[in-house]
């Protein structure tokens, strides 16, 4: 049994780490989506966190927590800088602006000498341990659970539901939008920092358009009715490619199809499944 576990861990430890960092990324987009903002810049923020923390580890050999915090803070600062102009946009325009921002950041990584260009950074010391991730995720669940029943949580709900009414209720909408945008950036930056310290390398490819879309897919698949939705979505979308390994190059089709079917037939994500079943059951009960 112990041997089996050891062998399992040997093969799948990266996957387990990914489950956690993807969950953090999913929560990073949830906090903005829950406020009604479709920001798809979180892959870029994760990249900023990954590069910053990896460089601090490699060049200065600073303690891991310091590197992580610096990566997260760097992402937060960039978020703060672009938040004010970008958050005046709404809906698809915000989505496109953050998408463009993400591409700009990717091209910057690609062209800077310090980030290693297209090759990225290699040989980052592995410092992420499972308990770090468990701890962070537990803390996040605690945070989101408290948020749900707090004044801050209600305020964000109000902005999502009706921005104009929220303003008339005395809510400083600009402030709160920037707050969640920066928080999302910091979370993504943290996930990026963890990621860099167990995959040994970072490259611009990992933080481009594709990953940005993946993060959005986590939240959409699970549903944003509660913070459990994005966690569920990220778990499924992280495991799915592993489970579908036998499909080789075709396996992306399943991911695409799942995302597509969910958005068309389950607009509130997988979280809605129990409700849908209950409704179907009731309809069946009284013909």
């Amino acid at each position: 049994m112990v041997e089996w576990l050891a062998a399992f861990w040997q093969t799948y430890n990266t996957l387990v780490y990914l489950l956690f960092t993807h969950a953090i990324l999913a929560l990073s987009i949830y906090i903005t989506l829950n406020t009604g903002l479709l920001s798809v810049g979180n892959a870029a923020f994760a990249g900023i966190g990954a590069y910053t923390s990896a460089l601090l580890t490699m060049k200065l050999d600073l303690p891991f927590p310091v590197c992580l915090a610096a990566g997260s803070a760097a992402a937060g600062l960039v978020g703060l800088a672009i938040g004010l102009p970008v958050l005046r946009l709404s809906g698809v325009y915000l989505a496109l602006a953050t998408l463009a921002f993400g591409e700009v950041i990717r091209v910057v990584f690609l062209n800077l000498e310090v980030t290693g260009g297209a090759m990225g950074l290699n040989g980052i010391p592995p410092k992420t341990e499972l308990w770090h991730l468990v701890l962070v995720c537990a803390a996040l669940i605690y945070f989101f659970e408290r948020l749900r029943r707090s004044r801050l949580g209600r305020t964000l709900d109000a902005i999502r539901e009706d921005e104009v009414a929220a303003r008339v209720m005395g809510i400083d909408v600009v402030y709160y939008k920037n707050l969640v945008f920066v928080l999302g950036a910091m979370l993504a930056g943290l996930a990026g920092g963890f990621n860099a310290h167990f995959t040994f390398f970072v490259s611009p490819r990992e933080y481009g358009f594709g990953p940005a879309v993946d993060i959005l897919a986590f939240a959409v698949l699970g549903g944003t009715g509660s913070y459990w939705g994005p966690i569920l979505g990220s778990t499924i979308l992280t495991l799915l490619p592993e489970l579908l390994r036998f499909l080789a190059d075709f396996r992306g089709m399943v991911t695409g199809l799942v995302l597509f079917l969910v958005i068309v037939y389950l607009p509130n994500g997988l979280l809605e499944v129990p409700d849908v079943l209950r409704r179907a059951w009731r309809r069946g009960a009284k013909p």
Partner: protein
Amino acid sequence: MLAQQLANGIALGSVYALFALGFTLVFGVLEVINLSQGAIAMFGAFFALVAVTALGTGIYTAMALAVLGAAILGVLIDRLALAPLRARKAPHLAPMIATIGITIFLTSLAQGLFGAQVSRFPIGLVPIRIFEVGPFQVTQLQLVIVAIAAGLMVALLLLLNRTRLGTAIRAVAESPRAAALLGIDVERIYLLTAAVTGALGGAAGVLIGLSFNAISPFMGEPILLKGITVVILGGMGDPKGAMVGGVLLGLVEVLSVAYLSSDLRDAIAFGLLFLILVVRPQGLFGRRQARKA
């Protein structure tokens, strides 16, 4: 030298413009950001490649087949994904995300069918000839690309502005409800728009495949990102803006490669996009939309 760069820029820009035209038309009529437009272009390029290599057709026949195939693909996407969302009156972000799913699906499908490597059209498909046009030296390929792109754009503008169908399309873009009251079959217009935009995407894909002589399952993403840039430059939903924006982006890219650095090409394009969104979200040529009360 500068004249030559301008010619290259216009050739590249006309392809961007063609692609962006399809993208902007979907937005104008359906108010949907169709992110699968890049994947449609990619499949268009592959359709042409298959026609040329497997069926042994010439490039023009291949192009026609590709356009037809892409139009059908566009219609399929509309029927399967966008129509049900319309029927449900889903918020605008839903179709955008659905088309992301379709893009992932199609990219993977292409990867499985054609492999992940870069494929190329056979050499000499378009005869390699160089013409002197005034101060410009242009290849026959460039002429073909500009001619096809310009021809299709003119055809589309004529369709939109000079035919009853075009009037109906513009009416639906303005207000689907009012159009329905006037007796226009709105769903049919949506279907036609999907076919037309699919065709434009497919044509753009073939031309891009030709101009870079590289076709791969992953070519859709950069095309899409360029298309988004162009559409935002020109103002969302504005066909003329898309054309001007496309040529503008082509020129900016070619000139920045020539005079600055090839590494900066994308940085400039996306930097421009970001800046425009922040400073002038209505696009360079658009008017600010009237505020809703």
